């Protein structure tokens, strides 16, 4: 029996996980196909119809400049996807490599890397973002850098602990006795055993990253107007909340659904791949 098929079967039976997967797929599809799906140009102004509620033409109304909120939400998803995909994968990669080196390497290197992880971790994300943006000015690239730097320690720590648990395992000693060097041991034998829990953590981190971007954009430190992002939609909606609640609702719902989707998916993956947490079935 192929272990992957068994896992797939387990996953298919997990209702919450499937729900999460559907949400995640919708998130990806809506972001990727935003130009095809959007009924309007997200930048096109229609001053007479500003701050309107939902109509046939504008599904969830317009903002204070008369731009179609639905189209802006779709395009905002592209920013979120970019941040999530690039930010999470780059920080995962760096964290994984550093963590494995810390776990497998000599004691002094381990201590040095741990010191680095803990130093980075001790900065509150938003405060660090404020400081960095104050120096460089707001941009999407800067948001990405902040996301990557602040997420590395989490992955690094996890990779280090898992590596430490494995480094004295029999099969690692067996590889060493065959003459395998550290690179082969790390890439060929430790990596496949460490990557599973890290990928699950990454899936659960995606919504965190998306909300960091939204938060920074809300504060005016993220993407620059007029580029739509969920955070800036919320921010602009917040200013007109006394006239119309629709922009806030429209900007908030995808954020909530993405968070739910990735969290459910991550939890389901964890249940499937980590049998220790699995309940009797």
């Amino acid at each position, binding site marked *: *029996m192929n*272990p992957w098929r*068994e896992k797939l*079967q*387990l996953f298919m*039976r997990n209702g919450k996980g499937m729900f999460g997967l559907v949400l995640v797929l919708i998130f990806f599809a809506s972001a990727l196909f935003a130009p095809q799906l959007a009924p309007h140009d997200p930048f096109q102004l229609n001053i007479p119809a500003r701050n309107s509620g939902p109509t046939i033409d504008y599904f969830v109304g317009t903002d204070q400049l008369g731009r179609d909120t639905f189209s802006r939400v779709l395009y905002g998803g592209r920013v979120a996807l970019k941040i999530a995909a690039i930010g999470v994968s780059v920080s995962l990669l760096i964290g994984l490599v550093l963590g494995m080196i810390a776990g497998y390497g000599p004691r002094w290197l381990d201590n040095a890397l741990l010191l680095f992880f803990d130093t980075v971790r001790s900065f509150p994300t938003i405060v660090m973002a404020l400081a960095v943006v104050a120096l460089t000015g707001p941009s999407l690239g800067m948001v990405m850098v902040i996301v990557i730097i602040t997420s590395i320690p989490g992955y690094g720590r996890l990779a280090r602990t898992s590596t430490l648990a494995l480094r004295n*395992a*029999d*099969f690692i*000693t*067996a*590889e*060493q*006795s*065959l*003459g*395998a*060097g550290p690179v*082969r041991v790390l890439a*060929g*034998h430790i990596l*496949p*055993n460490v990557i599973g829990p890290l990928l699950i953590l990454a899936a659960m981190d995606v919504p965190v990253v998306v909300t960091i971007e939204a938060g920074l954009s809300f504060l005016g430190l993220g993407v620059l107007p007029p580029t739509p992002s969920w955070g800036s939609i919320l921010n602009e909606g917040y200013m007109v909340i006394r006239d119309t609640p629709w922009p806030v609702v429209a900007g908030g719902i995808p954020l909530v659904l993405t968070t739910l989707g990735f969290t459910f998916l991550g939890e389901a993956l964890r249940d499937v791949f980590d049998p220790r947490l699995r*309940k*009797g*079935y």
Partner: protein
Amino acid sequence: MTAVLDVKNLEVAFRTPLGPIFALQDVSFTVPERTIVGIVGESGCGKSTVVWSICRLLAENGEITGGQIRYGDSDVLSFTQQQLENYRGEQVSIVFQDPMTSQSPVLSYKRQMTDIQYRRPDKRNKKVTRAVEAMRAVGIPDPEERINTYPHQFSGGMRQRAGIAMAMMMDPGLLIADEATTALDVTMEAQIIQLIRELRQDMNGSVIAVSHNLGLIAELCDQVIVMYAGQIVETGTVTDIFHNPKHPYTQALLECDPARILDSSRRLPTIPGEVPNLMSAHKGCSFAARCRYVVDRCRQELPQRTDVSASHNLHCHRHFELETLGVLAQSSSEPALKKGYKNSSLSKVNGETNKLLEVKNLNVRYQVLDLMQKAFRRDSPMFVDAVIQASLSINQEETLGLVGESGSGKTSLARGILQLTGTAGGEVLFNQQDLISLKGHQLKHIRREIAAMFQDPVGSLSPRKTVGALLSEPFKIHGVKLGSVEEEVQELCKMVSLPLSFMTRYPHELSGGQARRVGVARALALKPSLIIADEPTAGLDVSVQGEILNLMSSLQESHGLSYMIISHNLPVVRHACDRLAIMYLGHIVEQGNCDDIFTEPAHPYTQALINAVPRPDPDKRRDLTAIRGEVPSLTNRPPGCEFHPRCAFAQDLCRTEPPENHELNNQRFVRCHFPLIQ
């Protein structure tokens, strides 16, 4: 005689995502009063499932689908939660396999043992007294003091004694020992067997002993139940089973036990095939696929119970038929074996042979405190010595056995030789080349010559790699280009008789024996001249042990290999090795020809080890108190001869003066002031 426990037609199934597993089918037996009943069988035969069913402690996905369990007059299966809580611990209690994980590490024994008595309305003082008495009964010195300690402060054997004390304290009607000695050394095992035998006299209840160790069953039990694939195949008194086994499975199991084969031969009998998985309810006899007397009827019909005598019954179609043919009669005597495999290399020992590996005064020490910690704790030593001044040599095509209790430094010595751990003085000469001074590239080259096999057959294979990838890895590491790697890998598979269809499997999909074969194949890949095998048969069933040892010896024949086999299993060592080295607390205390050592041990420790091995013969039960105490801690070495506190022959000189290693005769070395032979 009334029955304490009566199990009738018990059926248990486990739900899994891939469908149900029918773990027990139609299991019926009774446990009479004041008897010790043993349950034997290979792993995966349902021994433990029986135990957990009796306690109603099956895993969440396990379900008792039919049958009856009666304890005395009450029906265990209809107990309410409240009744169950009163039943467990008071009526039925368990001694677990691993005392380290089955005792709470954060509570003192006093607390744990008074907690067990929570159902009793007694005063606290009385509970403590009862706990102290229970500890005294299992032979723990100063129980008044020791009861305040925690499990980690006890050694393995003491912990298991305390486990027995806890189980016995409430005077249960039924005590279950589930592989109670499996995690212990032979010497401790002998002590625990002796303890249970002694306790039995003052005990009112019965005992169920579950074990795969035939020696233990023979030494301990009155009645024996043999299980195979979730069914009982044979039941009888211990003499019935060991001297007059009727079921082909029982016979095969007994034949496989190396302790029963007195001739030292390299070929051990095996049971081909493996225990069937119980996913589908099979018709016919479950043993049919591996049975050497199988006929068509065995595959079609489920055998019914046949009574041989009042106490002895079995499930086999062909029993009477085979009886009249006389096939079964001979098997109870010593099995016929091919001989002559062993002495091919023995004859060379006296002549001039090429020393392949020579270890001279090797030391291995581990740092326990770093400089900072040492500054604060001046009294405690910074290092522990795991191996002290060890010298040994292995000739070409020779097998050296390294034997000792756990903690004697066997594995450290092997790692020292393999350069997997730092050494602190001494020489390791391989083909006259000192390995300790080698670095990087040169060392990598030597790794092709010395291969290693590790204790855990599955755990020493990288879990996310397929068998194919694992087998081709040695070639990749060393960049060997010999035509195609694939052909080489197929060649390897053929050598260790591993089907090619296994190439895409992952280690966890292999049985212990199959995983061991992959390990052997990997060790052989680079055509080494020496293989260091750490417990090559540990964790394998007796039937598979023989297979692996036979494989290793035939590879030795065909490839001219030398082995160093590390083991605590003396019967196995006896069949596999030409020479032996016995280790105690980091010293090699005796070295010499295997047969000489077994017939005439020179060191008292060797003698004690040999005597401690349980004999699978109920008529030869003996007093097992040959060795007292346990291996002392490495940080607290006794002065003089390290063995003197446990030695029956210790004299004043032994307590003060460490003995020298001297040669007796015929390459026999012993490290003792007063060796048992001159």
